[in-house]
């Protein structure tokens, strides 16, 4: 089975490729703004096209589907049913799907689900990294402040931590706040 990818950036394409290739699907990645979509589709005869939802080449794909009944056409329903996964594929992964008429809905559904599950795991990873970031930033600031104190006042690491803690306690503020202020203004208060 041939799947053509259009305007899907490499970071997405590489991942889809590694998953689909193991299922025996031949993936053709096409990411050239200047090439002729008519020629590409005409020569390759893909059974499925995955295209960036916001690609400006989409209206040309619509024309191809109109010119030739054998070419893939937009899928927004599976069989006669509204499909939540097609919606999520477009909304979350930014991918729209075109398939030839006699593509079994069940096969399409699996393909979409596989693609989606991949994107969701990546998205979750990204969300987790994002959630971690403030904590990492806070540690960085604290370390910088300690280093500053050690270098400026000739104190040990332990003494620098003590100093920051004392100032934080006295002012009733978080230690990272005091550290941030120290780095920004050079003063504890």
């Amino acid at each position: 089975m041939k799947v053509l990818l259009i305007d899907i950036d490499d970071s997405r394409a590489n991942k889809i490729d590694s998953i689909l290739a193991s299922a025996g699907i031949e993936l053709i990645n096409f990411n050239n703004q200047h090439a002729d979509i008519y020629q590409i589709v005409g020569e390759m005869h893909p059974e499925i096209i995955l295209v960036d939802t916001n690609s400006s080449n989409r209206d040309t794909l619509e024309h191809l589907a109109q010119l030739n009944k054998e070419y893939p056409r937009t899928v927004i329903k599976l069989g006669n049913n509204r499909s939540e996964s097609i919606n999520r594929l477009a909304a979350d992964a930014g991918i729209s799907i075109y398939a030839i008429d006699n593509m079994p809905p069940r096969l399409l559904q699996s393909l979409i689900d596989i693609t989606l599950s991949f994107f969701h795991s990546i998205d979750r990873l990204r969300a987790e990294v994002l959630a971690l970031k403030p904590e990492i930033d806070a540690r960085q600031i604290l370390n910088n402040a300690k280093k500053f104190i050690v270098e400026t006042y000739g104190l040990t690491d332990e003494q620098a931590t003590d100093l920051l803690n004392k100032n934080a306690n006295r002012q009733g503020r978080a230690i990272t706040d005091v550290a941030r202020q120290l780095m920004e203004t050079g003063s504890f208060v």
Partner: protein
Amino acid sequence: MPTINNKNGIRLEKTDISLGFIPLTDCAPLVIALEKGYFRNEGLNVTLSREASWAGIRDKVGLGILDGAQMLASIPVASRLGVGGPRIDMISAMVLDLNGNAITVNNDLYDHLFSVDPRSEFSPLIAAQALQCVVEENKRAKRPKLRFGVVYPCSTQSYELRYWLASAGIDPDRDIEIVVIPPSKMVTAMTDGDIHGFCVGEPWNTLAVQQQLGHVVATKYQLWNNSPEKVFAVSESWSNENPATHQAILRALIKACIWLDKKENRKTAAKMISQAPYIALPEETVALSLMGLSLKHFGQMPEKVDDFHVFHRYSANFPWLNHAEWFISQMYRWGQLTTPINIEETVAAVYKPSLFRIAAEAVGLESPSIDRKTEGNLHEKNLLMKSLQIGPNQFLDGQVISVGGIIKYLEQQSLSKADIPALRLINVQKEA
């Protein structure tokens, strides 16, 4: 979450609204409704989403990713019928603008047309006939077909280009090649020599002429005076679930269209819509056609065409059912639609004059009391008084479509692929 719109005390089902648009001059009603605060005054928090393709807009509205969008007037009709795309039950209660498109040919082809008949410079009919001579010449010399670009297969521009070609006996499906290219790439495609001409909305024709790439040989106004171009469309299920919100959007858009139609506001409008988040082209390129100046040939004074863009006058915003009928007639003519359908029922399911009337009344406007009107019977020279309710409606080929006479009209169209007897069987309406 239901909220109360404080100002008018109307309960809106939804206040955070996302609307799609394509960077073209006639995205103006949406932009103005946002920038001038008409949406805000209705209690709506609208985000405008710039889209790269009509297929993208269509599917996002169908899937509920967008609440509504600017669309080619033919798209809701085509989607309802599943022509050139998936079947989506879309409705439109409002037309955003009339006219605004043009057909541009590259310099080489224009010189050729001019050498066949110099009146090609100002007459779309003669330019089409000259093109027919060129097409015949190319056939004899076994040269490849001329290529013309449009932005979407079932688009107003596609039907306009085909209408113009067919007026001179050129078969758009056999004598030339039509390709689909996004509006933003149209001018580049002409520069690269990929296409010899195109039919597209502004500001792309003006840009092509300003860059000395080509000449405008026909405007949409000349092909069919004051014909509908873009509509505001939503999915039927969205409209059923959000009737008050739909009305609030319509009211804001009507106010924007009234504002836009005032001559003195057009310069400000050009400044707003040419900005980076919208069209992202020089203000002077966008301003020209908005100011009613039709630039056809580089180095010549632009023609004064007050009606180049019409946003409100001539009952422009009213979704005339007979306009939707015309799109269906062209789908049959060019073989995009082959199944015989009940035309009257179909158009009434898509265009919604009743919804428009409610919104218009709420902003203190009178609406036409009829849903259909005759087309092609009013020449601009015959309209003695400049009426704001009704404008010229002539076709390039001088045809007239009476109310209920769409099949009779279709029967008279040249090169038609329509199965008239089958259509007559299903459409047992009284023909005028």
